[in-house]
């Protein structure tokens, strides 16, 4: 059974008082298997948010269907197995971090000691224990994202839907969130996320789908999609100039040719984090 099953999904929004309509999603079909990290990509206005909202049952489709673990998205019960982290997290700013988790836990049916323990664990997981009694109006963007992740996990979901989880977050926070997502994947949680930060998507996704003007234009395993077919990348360590000369001469006698030869670089992100991390 797929974690998410989208079949022939279309969504049309009428414009009030005008005859034209906006086609947000056009005949979209895709499957997300359990345990995968799936990246849904696309330019602004491509239909990503609409698709996610339909999967979560917040918007009704004009045609087609979406299912979560075999249950129709329009059923309230289907949302028991989903945790949602919205873009620009939408929470009650007058609540503290702990109160937020308690509130969402209560509306999910948790109470008493079980709720308190779960909330404490989640706060520890996302690193917000020291801010548990501070109101969300005093949280930074990264903290809001993290409390958002915590409330998404409150019901022990098998599926997480994340909308721009690292948008506007500094590199350290971004790295933390990315590491959490990898941790979720290792525990078997399916993750669907949208992001404009293609570098991050590349680092953690198994499969991607690219939406453009409401249509799924490309879809598949990441490594298959972006690998350049006829090229091979070798990274050598401790190669002496003699070894390099041997490789050059070997290649000269074949059809292959060297396109690029240089010293590999660390990423700017790693360099930045290394420079700015607190000294141990």
């Amino acid at each position, binding site marked *: 059974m797929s974690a998410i099953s989208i079949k022939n999904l279309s969504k049309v929004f009428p414009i009030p008082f005008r005859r034209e309509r906006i086609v947000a999603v056009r005949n979209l079909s895709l499957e997300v298997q359990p345990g995968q990290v799936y990246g849904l990509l696309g330019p602004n206005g491509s239909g990503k948010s609409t698709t996610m909202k339909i999967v979560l049952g917040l918007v009704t489709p004009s045609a087609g269907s979406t299912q979560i673990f075999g249950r129709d998205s329009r059923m309230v019960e289907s949302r*028991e197995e989903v945790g949602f982290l919205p873009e620009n997290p939408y929470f009650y700013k*007058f609540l503290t971090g702990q109160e937020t988790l308690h509130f969402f836990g209560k509306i*999910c049916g948790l109470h008493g000691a079980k709720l308190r323990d*779960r909330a404490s*664990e989640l706060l520890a997981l996302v690193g917000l224990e020291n801010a548990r009694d501070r109101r969300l109006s005093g949280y930074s963007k990264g903290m809001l994202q993290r409390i958002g992740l915590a409330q998404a996990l409150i019901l022990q979901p098998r599926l997480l839907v994340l909308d721009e989880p690292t948008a506007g977050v500094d590199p350290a926070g971004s790295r933390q969130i990315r590491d959490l997502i990898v941790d979720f994947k290792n525990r078997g949680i399916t993750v669907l996320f949208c992001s404009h930060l293609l570098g991050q998507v590349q680092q953690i996704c198994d499969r991607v789908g690219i939406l453009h003007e409401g249509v799924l234009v490309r879809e598949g395993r990441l490594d298959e999609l972006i690998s350049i077919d006829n090229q091979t990348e070798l990274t050598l360590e401790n190669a002496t100039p003699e070894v390099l000369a041997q490789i050059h001469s070997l290649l000269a006698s074949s059809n292959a040719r060297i396109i690029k030869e240089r010293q590999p670089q660390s990423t700017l992100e790693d360099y930045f984090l290394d420079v700015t991390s607190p000294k141990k």
Partner: protein
Amino acid sequence: MTPTSTLYADAPARHVFFSPARIWAIATNTLLDLIRQKVFYFLLIFAVLAIGISPFINQFNFQDQFQFLKDMCLGAMSIFTWLLSVLATAMLLPKDIEDRTLYTILAKPVPRFEYLLGKFLGIMLLLFISLLLMSVIFVITLYGREQFALADTMRYYANAPADVLQAQLKSIHDASFTISLIPGILIIFVKGSIFASLTLLISTFASSMIFTIMVSVACNFIGHLQAIARDVWLSPGTAGPLARSFLALVALVFPDLQLFNLVDDIVAGNTISLILFTKTAALGALYTCIYLLLAYFIFAAKEL
């Protein structure tokens, strides 16, 4: 901290179709939001009104003083309750939609009707607590004045026969807080609930908070005139057919709010029987339920 992590357990809990606990969580959250917006500061204004009227009425005899005090306090309670019910409800849905907190809640297994009911219950809690606190201030103010009046009367009638003194003391007690005022206060609550549910209905399809408030105020106004419209419509020969059709429309669509304006007569000394009170309150409850159902009908199909 439990020894084993509860984060990644196996089977999720069974979904409960109707959960009072969920509704209560939303209701208390709504109330908390309003409290942290410092809505209860209006009680200070109420207290000032209750106490500040004193210099203006000291020249009158005690019966008159109690009359003025009761009129002022109950009138203020009526107006404040109405204001709260309209303003607090008008911002419930627009705020959640604008802040997008609605998404986060409905992305959980929370049915829309529970969300709506929870929000409404939060407002009811607010109205109940506000009325209770205002009643307490009211009773304390009356009690203070009553004690003063009793002491004054005892001094004045110190040498009078016992039964004359008792009659005077009794008349002061009777002019002060009496049980008959309680139905009046309860009807204020019923009227507030009608307004809250009506405002909630309007907010499900209104485009902005200001629009919601304006329509709700207009409904208040029309509702107070509905009885006149109804009487003219139902009595033959008083108006032409076009006018009568219009009046019929008004009578059918709008509630008769004059039926819930009982506190003025109650404070003048009119008592209401338990049966009549129950019938009136039941009609108010019916209005509230109908408006809530209609609000859900529209909200259920609302595109978020």
